[in-house]
C-alpha cells in the first residue's frame, strides 16, 4: 500500500464572513504523528472541521489533498470514504441506533459496495478492539453516544477510528474528559496504529497525551496561523513557558 499523505496549502477559512484561518500549511504523511497546540479560540477545531467538510466553514483560499485527491471537491462522506477520519470534540448522540449497528454500517460505507464485512468477522473485530481500549462490551448495544460520559464518547471515537481504518486521522481534543489511564490507553492505541498507511494529527491544549505519543512534529497555532513548528522539544518548551511566550513571539513576528 502506498504511504498516506495529507497536504494543506495556504488554507484560508471564514465563518459567517469572519476569517478564522489565515493561511495554514501542513503536510502529514503516513508513519508521522503531528500535534497542533494553541490557546482556545485560535482556530484548531476550525482546521479539523474544515478538513472534514463541516458546512459552517467556508474555504476562501488554499488547497487540501489526500493522497493526491482534491479534498475540497468532495462531500464529507466522500472524504471519509477516501480515508480521512475526524475524532470529534463533541460527538453527536444518535438515539435509537445501537453503536454496533452504526459501526457496521460505517465500516461497510468505508469499504464500498460488494465488500461488506461479515457478521462474525465484524463481531470479532469489535470485541478485540473494545478489549484493546478497555471498553465494556455492553457499549456495543447502547444507542450511539446517548448517555455516554465525556470519556466514554472519546473512547468510542477511537474505537471508530480503529475499526474504520483511515489513512489520516485528526483527533480533536481527544484527551479532554479522559482520566490519566484512559489517556494512556488512547495514546497507545494511536501509536500502535501508526504505519506507512496511517498518519495522525493530534489537536490538544495539553502536553499530557503528547508525553505518551511523542509526536515527531509539533505546531503551535495562534490567531489562525501556525506560528511555530518543531519537534517534540517544542511541546515541552511550551509547557514550561506557557502560551504567552508564543503570543509574544507571534506579535513580534519572531517565528
Amino acid at each position, binding site marked *: 500500500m502506498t504511504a498516506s499523505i495529507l497536504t494543506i496549502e495556504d488554507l484560508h477559512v471564514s465563518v459567517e464572513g469572519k476569517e478564522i484561518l489565515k493561511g495554514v500549511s501542513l503536510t502529514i504523511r503516513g508513519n508521522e504523528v503531528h500535534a497542533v497546540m494553541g490557546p482556545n479560540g485560535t482556530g484548531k477545531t476550525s482546521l479539523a472541521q474544515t478538513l472534514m*467538510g463541516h458546512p459552517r466553514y467556508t474555504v476562501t483560499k488554499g488547497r487540501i489533498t489526500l493522497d493526491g485527491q482534491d479534498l475540497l471537491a468532495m462531500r464529507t*462522506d466522500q472524504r471519509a470514504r477516501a480515508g480521512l*477520519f475526524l475524532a*470529534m470534540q463533541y460527538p*453527536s448522540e444518535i*438515539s435509537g*441506533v445501537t453503536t454496533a449497528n452504526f459501526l457496521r454500517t460505517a465500516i461497510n460505507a468505508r469499504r464500498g459496495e460488494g465488500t461488506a464485512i461479515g457478521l462474525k468477522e465484524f463481531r470479532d473485530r469489535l470485541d478485540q478492539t473494545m478489549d484493546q481500549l478497555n471498553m465494556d462490551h455492553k457499549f456495543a448495544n447502547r444507542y*450511539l453516544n446517548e448517555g455516554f460520559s465525556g470519556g466514554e464518547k472519546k473512547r468510542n471515537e477511537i474505537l471508530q477510528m480503529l475499526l*474504520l481504518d483511515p489513512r489520516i486521522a485528526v483527533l480533536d481534543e481527544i484527551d479532554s474528559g479522559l482520566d490519566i489511564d484512559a489517556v494512556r490507553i488512547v495514546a497507545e492505541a494511536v501509536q500502535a496504529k501508526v504505519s506507512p498507511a496511517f498518519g495522525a494529527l493530534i489537536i490538544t491544549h495539553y502536553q499530557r497525551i503528547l508525553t505518551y505519543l511523542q509526536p515527531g512534529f509539533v505546531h503551535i497555532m495562534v490567531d489562525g496561523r501556525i506560528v511555530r513548528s518543531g519537534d517534540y522539544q517544542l511541546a515541552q518548551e511550551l509547557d514550561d513557558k506557557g502560551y504567552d511566550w508564543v503570543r509574544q513571539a507571534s506579535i513580534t513576528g519572531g517565528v
Partner: protein
Amino acid sequence: MSSSPLLGQVEPLKTRMHAEFSSDPTWLLERRSAALDRYLDAPLPSRPRTPLRNRRLDEVPVFDAEPVLHSSVWKDLEPESSRLSLSGAAVMEASLSAEAKQKGLVFTDLRSALSSHEHIIKPHLDRSLAAEAGKFDALNQAWWQNGAFIYVPRHVHLAVPLTVVHHQSPEQSGFFPRTLIIMEEESELSLVDLYMQSGTGDPVRCIASILVQAVLGPSAVLRYGSIEELSPSTEAFVHRTANLEADAEAHWNVGTFGSALEISSQNTYLRHSGSQNHSVSVFFGSAHQHYDLEVQSVHQGTHTKSNIVGKGVMKGRARSVFTGVTDIKHGAVGTDARQKEQTLMLSDQARADAIPSLLIEENDVFAAHSASAGPVDRNAIYYLMSRGMTEREAVEMIVEGFLAPVIDSISLDDIRRRVWAAVREKVQE
C-alpha cells in the same frame, strides 16, 4: 351508476341511498336515512389547525364508479389462515382457521353477519359512537357497503392474529369501510386491520370515512394493529372507538402513511375499574400531506391506566398535528395516565405540532406528559457523514433510530413489519 350525486346534493343523495340499500333490513335503512340527515345537518369537524371550509368537500361524488378489482393487490398478500378481504361490498376472500371456528369465533363480513348475527350487531353497530359521532361518522353510517365483523366468545383466546383487508381501487370516489369487534369476558384477540387504496387506475378525489368500533367485556384483551395506505388524492376521516369493562385492555397500534388529508380520532373509554389503554401511533407525512390526529383516553373507572405514544416524521411540505387527550373524570381515583408525543421534521417547509391536553377532575391521580416537535439535528447528519454515510443514508439512520423504540414495541409481527416497510419507503421517497 355513472351519475353519482355529490356530497352536497341533498335530494339526489337521498334518492340514491334508498336505491342503493333497498335490500337492507328496515331498521338499518332507517338508521341510514337518519345518519344521512345527521351528515347533512352537522357542521364540519372543528380542528383549529386544520381548516376544512375551503376544501369544498361537498363537491366530491359519493360513489362514481363500479368497483374495479385488481387481482394484483391480493397476490401481494401472504397466505394467512384467517383473513377477510373486502373490496366495496364484495368479499374477495374469507378464511378462518379450523381452531378459531371450533372455538366459536365469528369472523365474517358485516353484510353476511346482518343475517346470521343480527341480534348481536343491531344493538352494537352504532351505539358506541353516539357520544362523539361527527359529520363524517354519519356519512359512513349512511353509506357503508360492507365491513368486518368479529365476535369473540367468552374465554376464547386466539393464538394467531386475524387479518382484515379493506381495499378500494383508487379510481373510486367514496370509501366507507368499517370494522366491528365484540369481545366477551376474558377473551383475547389480535387483529390486523388494513386499509388500502391501490391498483393501476388513475386516482380520483376520494372522501374516505373509516369507522372502527370495539366493545371489550370484562378482562378482554384486544391487540389491534392497523396501517392506512390510502391514495394520495384521498381525504380521510378515521374514527376508532373502544369501550372497556373492568380489567379489559386495549392495545392500539396505528400507522398512518397515505392520503392527502387525514383527520382521525381514537377514543378509548375506560369505563370500569382496572381497564387499560395502550396506544401507539406512528405517522410519516411527505409532499403536501396533512395529518390531524387525536388520541383520547377517557378515565371513568377507578385504577385505570393509559399510555398514549405518538411518534411521527414530516418531510417536504407535510403538516401534522398530534393531540393526546387525557380525560380523567370525577371519581376515577387511582388513575395512571401517561402520554408522549414526538415529531421530527426533515425539511424547513414541514410543520408539526405535538399537543398534550389534560382534563383532570379528580385529585388522587397520576398524570404525566411530554411533547416535542423539532427539526432533524444537522450536526448528527454531519457526524454520520463523517463516518462515510451519504446524507440520505445518514437521514435514514436518524429517522429509523427515532422511530425504532416505538415501532419495535409493536407486538403484532405483521404490523411491525408493515410499519417498517412503509417508513423505509417514505424516507426514500
